[in-house]
């Protein structure tokens, strides 16, 4: 839902507060706009409703795999490949193996959360068309931006800039750059 909004021709409106941006989202959603995106220096609440993230389930599975792999490595090393008989203690020592199993679980789950975020949030591209807007730098400082895709014009009677202008943003910019 996020980068599809950034086709050329997208209208970007600048607001000076989170409250104004939130009410703009509310008004436009009420008009039937669906391809909206917000840009804000702090997380916007309530913001635009989103589909449920799949990241938690990915992290959960990665954790399980990491734990299983850690246990398997220990079992292979100390039970199968090269068992050490020290004082007659069993080679397959479950309690002793649990520590590295736990650590492997946390390690793999954390790596999955980190890498997963960079993939889903497209955080590996240092450049984005919105950066070409003069003054967009303030989106990480103190300004709140709204992106409206003109494709929405097909579904609502009023053309986009009119709807946007009625929200009285600081300014409206049309995005020309190709993503």
């Amino acid at each position: 839902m996020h980068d599809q909004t950034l086709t050329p021709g997208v209208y970007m409106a600048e607001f000076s507060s989170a409250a104004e941006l939130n009410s703009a989202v509310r008004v436009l959603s009420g008009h039937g706009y669906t391809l909206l995106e917000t840009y804000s220096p702090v997380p916007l609440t309530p913001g635009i409703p989103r589909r449920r993230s799949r990241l938690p389930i990915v992290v959960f599975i990665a954790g399980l795999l990491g734990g299983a792999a850690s246990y398997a490595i220990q079992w292979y090393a100390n039970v199968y490949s090269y068992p050490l008989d020290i004082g007659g203690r069993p080679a397959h020592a479950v309690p002793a193996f649990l520590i590295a199993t736990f650590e492997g679980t946390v390690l793999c789950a954390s790596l999955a959360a980190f890498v997963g975020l960079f993939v889903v949030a497209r955080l590996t591209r240092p450049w984005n068309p919105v950066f070409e807007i003069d003054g967009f730098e303030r989106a990480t400082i103190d300004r709140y931006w709204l992106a409206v895709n003109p494709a929405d014009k097909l579904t609502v009677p009023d053309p986009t800039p009119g709807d946007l202008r009625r929200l009285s943003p600081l300014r409206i910019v049309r995005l020309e750059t190709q993503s």
Partner: protein
Amino acid sequence: MSVSRAPAAATKSESFPLLKGNEGDAALTDHLLASLWSTPRAWWLLFALSSLGTLLLLATVTYTVVRGIGTWGNNIPVAWAFGITNFVWWIGIGHAGTFISAFLLLLNQRWRGSINRVAEAMTIFALVNAGLFPVLHLGRPWFFYWLIPYPATMNVWPNFKSALPWDVAAVSTYFTVSLLFWYLGLVPDLASARDRAPTRTRRLIYGIFAMGWRGSGFQWQRYRIAYVLLAGLATPLVISVHSVVSLDFSITQLPGWHSTIFPPYFVVGAIYSGLAMVLILLIPLRRALNLYDVITRKHLDAIAKLMLTMGLILTYSYVMETFMAWYSANTAERYTYLVSRPFGPYAVTYWIMTLLNVVSPQLFWMRRLRTNTVALFLISGGILVGMWMERFIIIVTSLNRDFLTSSWHTYFPTWVDWGLLAGSVGFFGFLFLLFVRWVPSVAISEVKELRQQQAPARLAGDHDA
């Protein structure tokens, strides 16, 4: 719970506002980023000092590697001494960072927002120092990778029933997760730095590290999920890492080490010393960067209260381990706890430790001292020394009186031991100074969000500030 929801008739301690000042978000951002664009003279002075410490560390490490660990004072029966004391001390210091950033995030303690960045950086730099000592103590540190299970042509594997591979797993996981968590928290602030950078080069550098962050609603929402997930994953590490470290001791059969109280006792001591280090770093930083509006008396008060709590639990642990030694009626146990430690060759260290760890935090019952930066700094420094002494006492006094009196041996550190300890402190300062200079030392976006959430309460709080 959020301060903004506090009732009008707030209790006395809540009269400290969490955040002060009414500057706009742009001014606040510039204020918090200022340390990235200019270098005060005091920074150069401290940097020169810590560089000397780093050189000392390099020199002593090189000497140890070239000549071997015979240059250290430890020998049978005191096979573990400064090296492992430093390891446990540094790794313990790291724990407060994760405690503040992950534990308190899950508990919705909003005051962590201003100090979590410094605490997390402290964790990473403490872990860098911690990892050095066991690796050096291996004797042939260039073979450290033998501890990792890799398919070697020798066909031997690490023994996972030994505590050493447990430490490797615990510490390397802890370091990795701390680093990921720290970097993830930094991304929005690095984007702010990118967007405020005065020169093109800096803009490029911060832009690369900001990974194209643009603060879209989608990014924020997924970011928050990942951040909380990482916090949830890091939280059990706060408990587990020092528990695993304590197993190095408690799985042995040595009086003074062989005790089931060790894991919680070590974890509490770790957080205790780490909070002390947080204050040692925050108090000068707050002054140098003029962070009084962001790191307020409320933060100092909260950390001091946590330290008092940890100090009391630690005192309970000291009392219980001594009681259990007496109650066990075991001659060797009783001798270690009731004779050797309080009256043996290291008795002075033992009593100074008790004074610093048990008695000095009691001053924090006084509200006035909990917000007095001089008192906080001195008591925290004392606790750091006291916690180092605690690990020294646990390690050395348990070893130096062997079961046979003919094997008794009094340990003395060599100049290399002292050099490594002092050098690691210098190196820690070196890394921390670079951090302050290059990276926003306060989580800017979190502070801005917090200010927005509690704007009405903050304005009300300013009257009695």
